[in-house]
């Protein structure tokens, strides 16, 4: 399929570039690991209740994604390669390739963040399947929304503040559902079925909206 080949080309190019520069990975990983370690030392032996642990986990994931995922389009602008990409690529292929890159990057970060979170803060989980579903679906929505907003703000001044400022209102439903689902799983007071449905619906809405809007954003 030619379209899929274009998507994979963007994905492979971004990974090759990321492996050689560590542009996004270092920023996101440094933030996540530092925050986790500092907080775990700060609370010491007191411990944090399950409610707060769930919120803390998603705050770390959110800020790590803000530090890393926004770079996909900002980097193209700063290195002046955006024009070459616009001249040669289909907008839908660019969005899908960059979304895929951000999703894999975020899941890769979580492979490090989540085990470290469990080692340092030791929460109990009532259902690992539910926890995995909340984390993966939350990541799909987070990567989708951040990729779209990164494309909008890439050519603006004050990109960092704009990415955060524009993202938070859009991400509130996702964060509320992900935190609530994780809280239930940490407290063991029922499943996270309803939150999983909300997260799946959010991911579908974000991906559909991005598919419809991205060509307009790209060409403007």
């Amino acid at each position, binding site marked *: 399929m*030619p379209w899929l080949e274009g998507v*994979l*080309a963007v994905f492979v190019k971004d990974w090759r*570039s990321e492996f050689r520069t560590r542009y996004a990975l270092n920023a996101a990983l440094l933030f996540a690991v530092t925050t986790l370690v500092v907080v775990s030392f700060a609370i010491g032996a007191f411990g944090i209740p399950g409610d707060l642990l769930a919120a803390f986990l998603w705050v770390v994931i959110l800020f790590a994604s803000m530090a890393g995922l926004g770079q996909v389009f900002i980097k193209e602008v700063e*290195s002046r390669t955006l024009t*070459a990409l616009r*001249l040669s690529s289909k907008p839908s292929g660019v969005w899908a390739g960059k979304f895929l890159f951000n999703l894999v990057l975020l899941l890769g970060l979580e492979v490090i963040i989540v085990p470290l979170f469990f080692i340092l803060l030791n929460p109990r989980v009532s259902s690992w399947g539910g926890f995995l579903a909340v984390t993966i679906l939350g990541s799909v929505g987070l990567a989708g929304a951040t990729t779209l907003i990164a494309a909008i703000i890439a050519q603006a001044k004050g990109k960092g503040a704009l990415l955060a400022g524009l993202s938070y209102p859009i991400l509130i439903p996702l964060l509320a559902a992900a935190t609530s689902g994780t809280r239930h799983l940490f407290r063991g007071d029922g499943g996270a079925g309803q939150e999983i449905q909300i997260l799946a619906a959010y991911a579908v809405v974000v991906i559909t909206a991005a598919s419809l809007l991205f060509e307009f954003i790209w060409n403007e």
Partner: protein
Amino acid sequence: MASPNQREVTLCAQALTQRFGPNKIFESLTFEVPKGKGLVVTGPNGSGKTTLLRILSGLLRPTKGEVRLNVDGKIISPEERLRHIGFITPELALYEELTALENLEFFARVRRLKRTKADHLTLLERVGLKERGRDLVGAFSSGMKQRLKLAFAIQHQPEVLLLDEPGSSLDEDGRAIVKGIVSDQKAHGALVVATNDERELACGEEKLALA
């Protein structure tokens, strides 16, 4: 589909006007560049040469007027026009963290071209970079980067080639490569060159001087 050499190509600009805020860059530009011909755009810094080429490529929408690309009697939509254009400008850069070969492979894939490694090496040979294909572009001199940009612009045999200061940073060998590309382009399509370099004024039969 007709081969590139048999296609009929015409690039038309009608009453193009461009403003950035209160500043008028140019007004009511009308011209036509048919296959086999070249248009040379000249003018002082800030006269709008690069802006005009960006409008012709489809990267920028004019304040007024329109650009039409006609290929075999069919008008190409502005969104599709990007795929029929080869464009180099000092504002454009290629991926410095990739090698020259990786850059060409990537652009061939997103352009959906069927190209082999031998094809990419042939293209690199044409711009004098065959021996440097496996080097990172970040390690290239400005002249070598300009040569690679030329390869990027002609990789898909575009119907229209837009060259903004094509000879900048190039040595005499590089300028001879540009001359060859200009000549080949006119054999199968249209050409627009923006320059103030006297050596490049002969690239086109028509001249357009922006004030």
